[in-house]
């Protein structure tokens, strides 16, 4: 656009014309589709590289420094953790927490999806909406409600136990019950997610499969085993893998309910890293603990990606 103007204006001046052509070329380059496509992705790239990829490598770097971050100490932080009983307790508790919570979330979600699917269609919306409330409330805030429910002397749970059974339970101050409580609240919060996914998947199973099975005399159990579960296999796998990551990396519920106590027995990697890294100010050790989430994330991500790709191929 600017080239004709430049030529008219100063036929003698080569430089101006050159600048003009360079400028035009640059404009043309900008208007090429791949360039434009890249430019539209540039903010995303900047965000992902600057605030996800770079911090990840920075975290690895931090985990190799001493507490004051002045000296490179190699794997000393990791070796220090491996020698601590608390660390191994966190590992065991995280695995127990994740396996139990994911299993029951999936189970409750699966059962509830079937229950809602069984009632008349025009009523399903209301029940689904009610069931979603735990998942819609910010978990840090709804956990405050649970914290109050677990209050040992003034609250509902122990009132029931006291009135009908003449006993009470120290919900959050005894290791077994504290672990039970954090898992229970996690199940309460996470089941609706499974419910939504399974309900949507149930609706996509062709009705004629069930009709054919009925004609062949299959009972409800056989339909479940031979139609529903095989048809939902993929979505069950994906939701459980997703939930494994989210549950393993949980922070809000444990932090609000127990802060890792009593005696560090309910800590997960997230809360343990927070208490050492931010509360006690040992940034390298905190980074080190957080990084243990990565292997679990990587394995789950590998399987999720494979599943998603398979699904794309099928469609």
């Amino acid at each position, binding site marked *: 656009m600017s080239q004709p103007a430049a030529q008219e204006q100063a036929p003698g001046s080569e430089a101006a014309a050159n600048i003009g052509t360079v400028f035009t070329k640059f404009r043309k380059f900008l208007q090429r589709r791949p360039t434009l496509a890249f430019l539209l992705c540039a903010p995303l790239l900047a965000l992902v590289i600057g605030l996800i990829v770079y911090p990840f490598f920075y*975290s690895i770097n931090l985990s190799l420094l001493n507490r004051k971050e002045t000296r490179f100490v190699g794997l000393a932080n990791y070796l220090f953790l491996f020698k601590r009983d608390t660390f191994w307790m966190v590992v065991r508790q995280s695995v127990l927490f994740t396996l139990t919570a994911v299993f029951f979330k999936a189970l409750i979600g699966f059962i509830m999806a079937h229950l809602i699917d069984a009632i008349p269609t025009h009523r399903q919306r209301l029940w689904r909406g009610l069931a979603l409330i735990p998942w*819609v409330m910010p978990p840090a805030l709804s956990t405050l409600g649970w914290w109050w429910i677990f209050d040992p002397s003034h609250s509902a749970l122990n009132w029931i136990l006291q009135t009908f059974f003449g006993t009470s339970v120290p919900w959050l101050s005894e290791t077994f019950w504290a672990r039970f409580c954090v898992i229970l609240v996690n199940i309460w919060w996470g089941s609706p997610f499974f419910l939504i996914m399974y309900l949507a998947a149930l609706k996509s199973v062709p009705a004629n499969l069930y009709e054919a099975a009925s004609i062949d005399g299959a009972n409800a159990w056989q339909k479940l085993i031979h139609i529903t579960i095989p048809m939902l296999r993929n979505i069950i796998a994906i939701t459980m893998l997703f939930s494994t990551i989210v549950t393993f990396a949980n922070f809000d519920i444990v932090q609000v309910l127990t802060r890792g106590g009593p005696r560090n027995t309910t800590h997960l990697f997230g809360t343990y890293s927070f208490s050492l890294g931010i509360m006690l100010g040992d940034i390298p050790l905190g980074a080190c603990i957080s990084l243990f989430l990565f292997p679990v994330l990587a394995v789950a991500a590998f399987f999720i990606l494979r599943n998603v790709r398979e699904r794309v191929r099928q469609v």
Partner: protein
Amino acid sequence: MIRKAFSFSNIQRNRRWALILAYFFLILFIIFFLFPPYYMIVTSFKTNEEISSVKGIPWIINQAPTLYHYKNLLTNTYFLTHFKNTAIVTIFTVAISMTISILAAYSLSRMRFFGSAVLATGVFLTYLVPETLLFIPLFKVLGKLGLLNSKWALVVVFPTLAVPFCTWIMIGYFGSIPKALDEAALIDGARWYQMLFQVFIPVAMPGIIAATIFAFTISWANFLYPLAFVYSNEEMTLTVGTVTTLIRGDVYHWGGLMAGALLAAAPPVIIYAFLMDYYISGLTAGTVKG
């Protein structure tokens, strides 16, 4: 013939029983799901004397209900400051996240450049990264930027949680728009931005609403980042403000705490009540679609 009629009525009776059983168990589960919010509501209307006494059934209001906790919350605490901070952070987070993800999704779903397929997979992988993995290095990065103890730190870090998922579901929605629509627009001489604003965004509106709700929720409900990066009452957001400032040494803080938690949780719950269908379709599309 008689046998057939008999079995037919049998099936009907079985169906009715199945329905009754379904409702029975559904009600049991719903009681489990709704008891905590219900109990929070009840507690927030109780007087301190009633909360501290052990007499009477705890899950109903035995004495006269009171609005004391709500009045106290709005006048004597930082609640309104926290609410304002949360609203500011959320508006900026949603605006930034949606701009970044719509532009990127438009490019990734319709144009090709070197490495665009890798980038699309990469976006999905970053969506899986949990917040607890990176908060320590982000603490250092924000420290270097001089943003610690400021709500603007949250505006910088929240998009890292929202953008990957928003981009991912927008790629799905844009990808499902028929190519014929682009071609028609191209023949009419539309530029890329005209195509984006006049074809893609209007057609993919349900997806945009779903992504916006997601970004809103992430920003409103996040607890770890404000807890780790913000310390002063003036800069705190609601989740952290409610958890840290409303809990005192006092045993009888429950009423005020429940009132604060309920009011803080209200905006996302209200938004879901109206826009639930959009969100659910976005969520199922986002995880199921390739």
